[in-house]
């Protein structure tokens, strides 16, 4: 057999994908650069949600709030306090991570639908606060955010922001990949599969949950900051239920507890949304139909299908 091993194919595909993304800004129109940039940011978001929902098996949906907190903190520090983006951005992400640890506390007691609704309530309250803290956020009208200062980097701002997103994505993937394969990853696995037995196996449920929510919050916060400088605009509309549903769809469509799944799910969702623009009112029907067919035929997402075809690609983790 001369057939290449699937792992190697996957690795080549990943390298090729990154290479394509790296040269894309110079090959396509600014519109497509924008779409690709949003796509990259959404992969980070899907990864962040997948960490909590897929790997740790916690049905929590607070991601959109973390993203919003990251975006608003960064945006307000830059426009109101004249902070540099390079300090404001991580500050926003750290705040999102800190809030993430707070959200982890109810997750210690609540499960399933109850955890879902308490986190959805949290998202709605954060959205409401963005809307009503007018003295700080400008309320519903939102505000513009300048490009980060790229210190005379000889490429245009739009492309520079694109590369910043790409680098962040690669960093996030590297961290999550290593983490999942580590002892921490095995704790997560155990948490998702057998939460009640976990303590007996010497797993500290408390710290594991806190850590995974904090990391998820950090990634979503970073993505929120990137989202804001890509749109150059922040308003509360971007951090509401619809985004939550879209991110949920990304994870489910791509595949739960799978890095490959996050990448595929986010890419497909974002490209679909853009391609289906032409369908106008039927946009919703089309995206619904595609989602339904995918989930009916591949209940474990597209990554599930890939792993089914090539069992050796299965990540070392639990079955969702």
């Amino acid at each position, binding site marked *: 057999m001369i057939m290449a091993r699937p792992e190697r194919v996957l690795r080549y595909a990943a390298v090729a994908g990154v290479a394509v993304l790296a040269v894309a800004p110079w090959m396509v*129109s*600014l*519109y*497509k650069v*924008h*779409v690709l940039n*949003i796509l990259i940011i959404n992969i980070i978001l899907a990864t962040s949600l997948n960490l909590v929902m897929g790997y740790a098996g916690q049905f929590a949906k607070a991601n959109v709030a973390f993203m919003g907190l990251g975006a608003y903190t960064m945006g307000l520090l*830059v*426009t109101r306090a*004249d902070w540099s983006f390079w300090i404001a951005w991580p500050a926003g992400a750290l705040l999102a991570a800190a809030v993430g640890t707070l959200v982890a506390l109810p997750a210690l007691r609540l499960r399933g639908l109850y955890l879902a609704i308490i986190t959805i309530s949290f998202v709605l309250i954060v959205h409401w606060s963005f*809307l*009503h803290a007018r003295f700080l956020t400008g*309320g*519903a*009208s*939102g505000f*513009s955010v*300048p490009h980060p200062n790229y210190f005379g980097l000889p490429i245009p701002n739009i492309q520079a922001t694109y590369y910043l997103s790409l680098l962040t994505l690669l960093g996030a993937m590297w961290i999550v990949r290593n983490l999942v394969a580590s002892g921490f990853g095995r704790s997560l696995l155990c948490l998702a599969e057998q939460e009640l037995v976990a303590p007996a196996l010497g797993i500290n449920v408390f710290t594991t949950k806190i850590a995974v929510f904090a990391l998820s919050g950090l990634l979503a916060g970073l993505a929120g900051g990137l989202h804001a400088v890509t*749109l*150059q*605009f922040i*308003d509360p*509309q*971007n951090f509401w239920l619809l985004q939550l549903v879209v991110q949920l769809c990304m994870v489910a469509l791509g595949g739960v507890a799978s890095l490959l799944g996050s990448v595929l799910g986010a890419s497909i969702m974002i490209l679909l949304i*853009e391609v289906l*623009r032409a369908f*106008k*009112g039927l*946009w*919703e029907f089309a995206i619904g139909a595609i989602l339904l067919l995918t989930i009916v035929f591949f209940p474990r997402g597209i990554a599930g299908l890939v792993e089914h075809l090539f069992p050796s690609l299965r990540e070392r983790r639990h079955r969702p």
Partner: protein
Amino acid sequence: MRTHATRRTLSVLGCALALVAGAATAETGVTDDTIRIGLMVPLTGPAGATVGPGMATGAKTVWTEVNEAGGIHGRKIEWVEEDTGCTAEMGIPAVKKAIHDHQVFMLASGGCSNEILSYRDIVLENGVPYSVWGATNDKITQQPNCCIFRTSLRAGYEGVLQADFARSVPNAERFAIIAQHDAWGQAKYDGVMNKLKEYGITPIADEEMTAETADATPQALRISKANPDVIITDLFPKPTTVFLRAAHQYGLTKLPIILHTSINDLVQLEKDVGIPGAIDNAYTVTFTRDPNAPDLEPWKAKLAAIAPEIKLTPYSMWGVTGASVVVEALQRAGRDLTRESLIAAMESIEGFESEMIFGPLTYSAEDHDGNKTGMFQKLHNGKQVDVGLVWKAIE
């Protein structure tokens, strides 16, 4: 503040550069026999789906007529429709697609304020002329601004009209306001509040409702308890209906209630509210005329020929008005059409009349808000009648 100033300078510079570059070569989006316009309309999303199709159909009606009559200086208008979804997330890629992929000559329509605010800098940096027909936020046309023009009433100005009208009600001393605090409502709310503040007035009730509120009893109760003389509302037609029903229960509809430009069909409103007498004292400010006026009758058939289900609503009327202004500017710009010449032509428009609106549009280099004419109307014996800009008893 400093960053804002630099950005503004940059965008003006960008405008200038784009204009120079545009003049040197054949103009983007213009061929020997076509002019390509990006029709930016919200077609999806809660706020967008009702606004966009009306505006788009109004525009297509006007432009189809122009094209059938031979076009403008030998060129026909072709349009590419992009869905802005009324959000930054959908609007920014839509406008980038129109500018960079469709290579349009100019942009037109625009749905919601926030969507336009989010991509305003992109339009300015690329120096693309943009005729905005519905969005009202003051910042959209703020100077310096190379290329964005508006045909609708600016929200701040509409607020001034509402506040002045409220003050003109005899013996009115206590004012109540109820508004949506979303992107749409906030601009109008700020306009009213700023004007009232100028007069040293603090509303005795300042209530909030969302577009989705299913029951307005708390709002009506709180306003009723405050015992106002006049009520100013900045609510979409649907919450207006919900509010008026609750307000009627507590006797508030005996007071003058002031509505706004998105409600211009009071006959329809009375039907929707479904309670006789509930809008007897409602006054709406509008810049579009009564859609039931007999002389506008032919437009209903014309719109229906383009899209059967489109009626003469504020939205389609905005579309007709805006598209006519674009045609006028293209006419004035002449055969040697460039973005620069179009902008100059637009700024030269003075006293442009349309049968859809009350007052003429006048632009200048310093003022891109062409529309300064509002009119208060109320329902009288089943007909919508003009009241003027100050309150008067209609007999």
